């Protein structure tokens, strides 16, 4: 596939790995925020191949993993209603709530459907006027334009049987929260290439300046990630702390203006709770008042939801990058993809699942 396979070239990848090893005079700690990047790193074993030169710490880049438990419970409550067709991206289906997950709701008779695009949910609502379609609008800024368009479109089409359950989060506040925490070890960031495709990178310039960390906007294929790491290492070696763009084929400094415009027309910044991390002010998106009838939380009375969230959870430490999944006592024993204790083990690109599915017994593998 064009513009994809070229960035998987194994010969060039090995060259980049050697180059990183040559230029790093000491081990640097970098964080990638995006789950898709975590996926590639662990799937290709890049972290193992760079041991000693770069330590990759996996950030909270999985919107599925950071969706608060209350929101999952709200989703389950909606999905269990006989008058609702609950639609969602596939990622959410196995995330455990306080009592069960969407798969089990479906097994018990709930109408739960996977959609590939939010517009498919709108189309479903248009075609079935006697059912109310709720769409679980989860994601970072990358998905916000799509979710915004779904709401916009529903209004344009005059639909009354469509609403969204919103759980949108934004990256820069999370990055700041990580940099502010006392046990932060991260020295440089790989910013998420598709988030920045939408938003551009101007929001990261003040972060790089204030905390003196290099931030490299990076793509998702092995060559992208390795080049991003190389650029970050170079900055660290040279004492620079700038925002740089590796993913030039998709990202421009100002991002996608039409997308940003529609996002700001449909959504507004709100405070959001990140599962395992806690509340981060102005780190989420919520529907504006004029779109209230498309907000599932306001359309449906969702009382009586008892969320059982324990006082302490290691998932948070994993999401902030201070605990490696395999160092969690539950990893691989009580907590596995079949019976996950937390979201990072469920989502296909949560750090715990990535480690479990790709690198569980790394120590015993011939290398």
């Amino acid at each position, binding site marked *: *596939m*064009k513009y*994809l396979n070229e960035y998987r070239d194994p010969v060039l990848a090995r060259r980049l790995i050697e180059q990183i090893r040559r230029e790093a005079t000491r081990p640097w700690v970098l964080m990638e925020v995006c789950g898709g*990047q975590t996926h590639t790193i662990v799937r290709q074993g890049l972290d193992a191949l760079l041991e000693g030169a770069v330590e990759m710490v996996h950030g909270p880049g999985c919107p599925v993993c950071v969706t608060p438990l209350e929101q999952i419970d709200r989703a389950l409550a909606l999905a269990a209603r006989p008058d609702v067709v609950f639609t969602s991206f596939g990622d959410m289906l196995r995330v455990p709530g306080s009592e069960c997950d969407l798969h089990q709701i479906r097994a018990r008779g709930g109408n739960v459907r996977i959609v590939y695009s939010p517009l498919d949910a709108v189309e479903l609502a248009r075609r079935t006027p006697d059912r109310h379609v709720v769409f679980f609008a989860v994601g970072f800024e990358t998905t916000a334009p799509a979710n915004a*368009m779904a709401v916009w479109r529903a209004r344009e089409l005059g639909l009354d049987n469509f609403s969204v359950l919103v759980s949108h989060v934004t990256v820069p506040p999370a990055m700041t929260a990580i940099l502010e925490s006392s046990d932060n070890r991260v020295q440089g960031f790989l910013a998420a*290439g598709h988030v920045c495709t939408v938003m551009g990178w101007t929001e990261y310039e003040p972060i790089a300046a204030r905390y003196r960390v290099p931030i490299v906007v990076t793509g998702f294929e092995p060559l992208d990630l390795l080049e991003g790491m190389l650029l970050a290492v170079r900055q660290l070696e040279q004492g620079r702390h700038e925002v740089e763009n590796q993913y030039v084929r998709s990202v421009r400094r100002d991002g996608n203006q039409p997308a940003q415009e529609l996002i700001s027309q449909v959504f507004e910044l709100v405070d959001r709770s990140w599962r395992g991390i806690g509340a981060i002010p102005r780190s989420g998106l919520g529907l504006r008042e004029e779109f209230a009838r498309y907000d599932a939380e306001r359309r449906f009375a969702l009382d009586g939801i008892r969320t059982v969230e324990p006082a302490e959870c290691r998932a948070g430490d994993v999401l902030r990058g201070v605990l490696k999944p395999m160092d969690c006592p539950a990893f691989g024993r009580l907590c596995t993809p079949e019976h996950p204790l937390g979201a990072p083990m469920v989502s296909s690109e949560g750090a715990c699942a990535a480690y479990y599915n790709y690198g569980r017994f790394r120590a015993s593998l011939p290398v």
Partner: protein
Amino acid sequence: MCLGIPGKIVERHDDRGLPMGVVDFGGVRRDVCLAYVADEVQVGDYAIVHVGFAISKVDEEEARRTYQALREMSRLDELDWMKDVADRAEAT
């Protein structure tokens, strides 16, 4: 958040005022909303697609330049892995 892949725009049409297109991903075709790149792209261009929406036009010039730069970094001698592949290919 992340799963955005490049595809080639092979058709454009309008769905009740919404700019749409058909995008080809290595032989797989799907309807994609082009609202966010409508003024930039034409049939034959590549776009990054996430959940059925084009979020950017692939800058083919930049893509070519990046790839060239990466290639220039590498030398032409054979790596162990490549030699291994050659040996195996011979054996079969």
